[in-house]
């Protein structure tokens, strides 16, 4: 188990190094000079040169790469070209919205999907299964911003239980913050839950056809006991894979939902940074997202091994 974890950890570090190289050079190669963008089309060449020197844009690429990576390792992400504030601070502010939102949505999605998927698999081909499958079909098909708008209409405008947008912040405690994230989290969670429920159902159906399920029944387990004790844990491997992918998506892919609910999240930050050629912000946010994805994958790998003893190699 220890060796397995160390191996995974090593592959995590290598992935991070490669990712940082790719991100830096791809963004650098993209057309558009931040300095001329900031000064406008009529800028004087010498002001432009001065600004470029100030931003460090005149240094060779590899020096800038090393400076960037070295800075990140010490928590210094550089200074935003457009806002002239430390990138680390900007990202930290946004993370306080995006990370809880992603976790909140993922929790909801799992809480909905597990029971729904298990219920459907246990009642394969019966009305209960068909109802779940129909609902998840809709959930997969409808975009999350539609759910978002419906949520706003029903719970914010008609019932007035939640505010229609904005973020209350965490300074007044946990509840006001969570409350303002609830509608966005539900909108994000519903389509994800639909996908996850379908994966759970089909993984479980595969397992239900396995020989060891029949063995379990032959021991005297009821259908339900066999399903819970022998089915669910074996079905978790594909489900964990999807959960890992979903978390990465939720962290960065919430741009539209952030727009609908007017949330100051990472998605909106990176969107604005791209349109204003604020390369250093783009690079840093992308790097952070890559970091998150890789760390989540690492966690998923460890979870696999926890679930399945065959992966804890003992050669």
């Amino acid at each position, binding site marked *: 188990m220890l060796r397995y974890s160390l191996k995974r950890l090593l592959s995590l570090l290598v992935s991070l190094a490669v990712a940082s190289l790719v991100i830096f050079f791809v963004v650098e190669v993209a057309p558009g000079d931040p300095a001329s963008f900031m000064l406008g089309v009529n800028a004087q060449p010498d002001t432009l040169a001065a600004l470029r020197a100030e931003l460090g844009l005149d240094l060779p690429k590899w020096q800038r790469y090393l400076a960037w990576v070295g800075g990140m390792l010490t928590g210094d992400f550089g200074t935003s070209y457009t806002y002239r504030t430390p990138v680390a601070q900007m990202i930290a502010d946004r993370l306080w919205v995006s990370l809880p939102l992603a976790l909140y949505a993922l929790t909801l999605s799992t809480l909905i999907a597990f029971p729904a998927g298990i219920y459907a698999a246990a009642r394969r081909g019966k009305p209960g299964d068909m109802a779940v499958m129909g609902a998840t079909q809709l959930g997969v098909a409808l975009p999350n911003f539609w759910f978002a708008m419906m949520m706003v209409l029903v719970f914010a405008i008609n019932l007035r239980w939640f505010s229609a947008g904005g973020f209350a912040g965490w300074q007044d405690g946990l509840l006001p913050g969570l409350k303002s994230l609830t509608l966005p989290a539900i909108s994000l969670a519903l389509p994800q839950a639909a996908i996850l429920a379908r994966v759970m159902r089909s993984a479980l159906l595969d397992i239900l056809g396995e020989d*060891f399920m029949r063995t379990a029944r*032959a021991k005297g387990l009821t259908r339900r006991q066999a399903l819970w004790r022998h089915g669910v844990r074996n079905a978790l491997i594909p489900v964990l894979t999807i959960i890992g992918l979903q978390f990465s998506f939720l962290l960065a892919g919430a741009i539209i939902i952030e727009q609908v609910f007017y949330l100051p999240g990472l998605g909106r930050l990176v969107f604005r940074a791209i349109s204003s050629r604020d390369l250093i912000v783009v690079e840093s946010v992308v790097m952070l997202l890559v970091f998150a994805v890789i760390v989540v994958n690492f966690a998923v790998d460890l979870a696999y091994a926890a679930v399945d003893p065959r992966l804890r190699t003992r050669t």
Partner: protein
Amino acid sequence: MSLLEIENLTLSIGGIGILDRVSLHVDAGEIVAVTGESGSGKSMTALAVMGLLPERASATGRIALDGRDLLTTPEPAMCALRGREIGMVFQEPMTALNPVQTIGAQVMETILVHDAMPRAEARARAREVLTRVGLPPERFPLTRYPHELSGGQRQRVVIAMAIALRPKLLIADEPTTALDVTTQAQILDLLKGLVDEFGMGLLMITHDLAVVAGMADRIVVMRHGAVVETGETRRLLADMRHPYTRMLFEASRHQVDLPAAPAPAPLLEVQDVVRDYRLPRTRLFAPVEHARAVNHISFTLNRGERLGLVGESGCGKSTLTRAILGLDEVQGGSIRLDGEPVFTGHRPNLAVRRKMQVVFQDPFGSFNPRHRVDRLITEPFHLLGDPPRGAARDAAIAEALTAVGLTPGDARKYIHEFSGGQRQRIAIARALIIRPELILFDEAVSALDVSVRAQILDLLAELCRAYELTYLFISHDLSVVRSVTDRVLVMQAGEIVEQGPTEQVFTDPQHPYTRKLIAAAPVLPELGLGVA
């Protein structure tokens, strides 16, 4: 009153009749074998007793355990019976255990799910039964996972689960079919010992008549969902009344009539071949280690000769086969066909490969279901520089299909339209169509019923007469190898421990391993067949 009484059990699934008025009984301490070919309804009879029939099944008649009718027992009460009163052992030990639970947990579960005793006692009982089935906790702690055990050891765990609560009736569905002969002999001994010790009734389902003859007190022969004959083992073997029973026994001991092999002239020369596999590194920078699957093997296969290769799983048979076919590169020695190496440099030699064909075990998995038969059997044509086209191709297809006992009209059909035996004929047609110098049969009849197997073996003999075939016949089934080969190689742990003329090796084995193999293989007794 018998322990288990089945009376007029009739079963249909979705309107299709599966069982037709099946009646049999098992007494305490008795071993009853149900035998028959695939589709005869043996397994469904067992599942009906367990109350684990598929959902759309409807059964009538009576299945009484100790006088209690199981067909009318409601599901919760059946759950209480399964595992406690009736235990069951299945065919496939590799998949019958939950891969993510320890063997201790799985054996204890049988006890705990019935609330038979507190956890600590259940653990002690699990240790006790695992010891009884030959897995003492000192060597096989309860914390082992199934993947850390061999097939035979896993089957012992399955048996331990089934007998943990000392059921009155044990049902074993092909319990040794997936195992090697020496392991099979051990498991059969174990089952017999348990029946004696606990006075259990054992209902054993098997297609292997030699196993039946050696184990059972009584035999029930089934065909197409009905019992055709039943009786005490010795009486039934001495006096078979039903033609089907007689046919089954004759097919099981079927001997083919091979034409004499021509004078020895080497075709395949295997010289000092070594095949190593890389093992995964144990530490990050540890030197790479190798496992030797084939260890300095040499033999010659003469033109027109039929050579057998026997050995248990893991002995290197398949690895050697792959090397001969030029699918893997060897790490030492040479393999030559007709003087040409099968591997030149690091690439397979295509000029040699087109002289060899192979027939695999699984008649269901070895064909692409989307292609028609003509396309399937002409696949080897891509090995030829100038394959036949048009009328010549049609003629080649028609000839190959006719040679294996099918008709040219079958060329336009899809593979799902054929039975297992017919598929194996098509596989042979595919091998024959380019008139190879050498055919490798890799467990080619192991998945077939005895009657179909006898037909395929006869077909081989016919083809030998018509085409002067040279083949290497790889199998774990000693009786089949004995029937269709001139010479035999016995392989153990990557080495050939004995080789010689087939009859001589079987009647006078020299190596202890060969003796052990032959002793472990169940044999049909030499009685009864003349009584008709």
